């Protein structure tokens, strides 16, 4: 836009209006954090002069991108902070107990793959659920004792798909690609199965990518940027080899592959970016135009409060999901104010961040409790969101079930 820009994140466009400062969820609860304006464009001008000006308090940035949504000038504040952390912050090494924790939390593929060894999943689930194990993790590597680890599935989604579903997909003349993400693969294959059910009901078959790695968001935010980039290259290459849309169910994986690969990790994706999207982004226009018609269950009833996850808000796609949900007969929808839940992926799992995490989420939790109370008990109630870590945080903090919109849609389809 402006001529002679030297930065890639629109640094020069910052007017110092402080709107980002006003909306930053971390700054509201933690005075040690300088806030997005100081951590982002203000700090960047100093860092360009001398990397010594790097402030370690930038570790508090949740990377929620709410600053970017608030910015009237298009400054990519969140990207700037992430990039600074990678460029000037200490690169993470698996050193000490906290280093081990960060690596474990970030390595979704490795840990998920281990847990998928048949004997290990039940043992791991059983152990991680006990108070004793939680106390040990809290006291040693620093995973907060309040946290509940998402349980691991004894069978990976990929394994189920190859064994049970792949053959049936051949009967469809057109297919779409599915980037399932770690959560559907290792923790909750049901979500992947729901995706297959919905896409098949739309008249399309599903195929998996040649190779899928974790999108790398957890690695990036825990300081393992080089590894995140390696995984990103593998994913982009697989996507390049696949034809047609690559659909997803997780808002954060989607945002990562579309926006953070090029802006933060330096992986160009212009050639494939438009093909990477959430299922609802792909489906809504086709349902609205009548190109796809879905048959719904008679007598389906559900009350849903939709939570716009931070990265969903940044992509601005919530209306596609809401549009799809509104088409389900018998579904009553309320849309909550977009507020951060505070978990920010692995951030809230660390014991030193627990209090911040819960304080940030409180506004959202209060609205959820209110919606739950107003819904009554005559009809099933759930919070809907595309983000799996929001799901863990909201379920832990309110005890109210959180469901991916794709699963709601799958549950409402006529058999």
């Amino acid at each position, binding site marked *: *836009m402006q001529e002679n820009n030297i930065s890639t994140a629109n640094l020069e466009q910052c007017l110092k*209006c*402080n709107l980002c400062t*006003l*909306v930053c969820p971390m700054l509201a609860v933690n005075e040690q954090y300088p806030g997005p304006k100081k951590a982002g464009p203000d700090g960047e001008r100093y860092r360009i002069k001398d990397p010594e000006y790097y402030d370690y308090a930038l570790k508090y940035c949740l990377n929620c991108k709410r600053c970017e*949504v608030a910015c*009237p000038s298009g400054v990519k504040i969140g990207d700037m902070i992430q990039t600074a952390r990678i460029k000037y912050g200490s690169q993470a090494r698996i050193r000490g107990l906290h280093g081990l924790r960060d690596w474990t939390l970030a390595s979704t593929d490795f840990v998920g793959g281990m847990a998928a060894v048949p004997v290990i999943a039940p043992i791991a689930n059983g152990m991680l659920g006990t108070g004793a194990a939680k106390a040990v993790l809290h006291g040693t590597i620093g995973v907060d004792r309040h946290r509940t680890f998402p349980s691991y599935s004894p069978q990976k989604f990929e394994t189920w798909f190859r064994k049970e579903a792949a053959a049936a997909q051949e009967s469809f003349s057109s297919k779409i690609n599915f980037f399932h993400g770690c959560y559907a693969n290792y923790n909750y294959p049901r979500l992947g199965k729901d995706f297959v059910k919905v896409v098949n009901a739309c008249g399309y078959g599903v195929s998996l990518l040649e190779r899928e790695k974790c999108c790398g968001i957890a690695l990036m935010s825990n300081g393992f940027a080089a590894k995140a980039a390696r995984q990103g290259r593998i994913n982009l290459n697989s996507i390049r080899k696949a034809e047609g849309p690559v659909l997803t169910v997780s808002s954060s994986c989607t945002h990562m592959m579309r926006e953070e690969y090029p802006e933060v990790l330096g992986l160009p994706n212009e050639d494939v970016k438009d093909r990477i999207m959430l299922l609802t982004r792909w489906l809504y226009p086709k349902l609205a135009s009548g190109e796809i018609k879905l048959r719904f269950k008679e007598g389906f009833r559900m009350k849903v409060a939709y939570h716009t996850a931070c990265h969903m808000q*940044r992509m*601005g796609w919530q*209306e596609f999901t809401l549009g799809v949900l509104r088409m389900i007969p018998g579904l009553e929808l309320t849309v909550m104010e977009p507020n951060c839940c505070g978990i920010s992926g692995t951030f809230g799992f660390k014991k030193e961040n627990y209090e911040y995490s819960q304080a940030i989420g409180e506004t959202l939790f209060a609205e959820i409790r209110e919606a739950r109370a107003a819904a009554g008990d005559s009809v099933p109630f759930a919070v809907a969101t595309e983000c799996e870590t929001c799901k863990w945080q909201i379920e832990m903090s309110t005890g109210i079930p959180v469901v991916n919109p794709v699963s709601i849609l799958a549950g409402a389809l006529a058999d």
Partner: protein
Amino acid sequence: MKFDVIVIGGGLSGCTAAAVLAEAGRKVALFSEGLSLHDASQGPASHKDQSRHPYSALAAISAKGVTVFRGDSIIRAELSQEGTKVLRAFSRNLGNEPLEAAAFLLATGKFFSRGIISNMEKVFEPVFDADVEFEPDHSKWFNPDFFAAQPFESFGVKTDAAGRVFKGGKAVENLYAAGQVKAGAPMSDSEIEDSGRKAAAAILKLF
């Protein structure tokens, strides 16, 4: 996506118009590139006070049923062959999804919010390339007296009596303008609100 009215800009005139239109029962979408600077002037103390929260204006119109696209902006539009009607618009975040409406309201403000952009050759409106009233002689854009009224402050889109915008010399029948994006002297906040209300009233006559 289809709406009755699409408001472009979430500042004072855009939010006011959206509120009036929603209260009158219209299906309204509002695209706001970031938050309004009116909210920033309240200072950090407003942060913990929900009633003065920076999202308050957008949250308030959202509560009235307006579909608010935060952090998104309309980047281009398609007009009828004669160039007298906006058929559909497209936003940065929604990509190729066509955004259709009976009426569009341009409430993007002036230079500061980039509703109007200038370079050495011309002054233009970036979304529709609507006709802009400005002084062609660059040397007359500024008054050397810094504190005097500046001629460039009056540059803005040309509108007819009903508030409709011109493009290529012809009035566009379903494209209205409100607030500072319009040609004319800088407005006070109450004048901006009033401009939003008037535009909403003109748009309501279409239904």
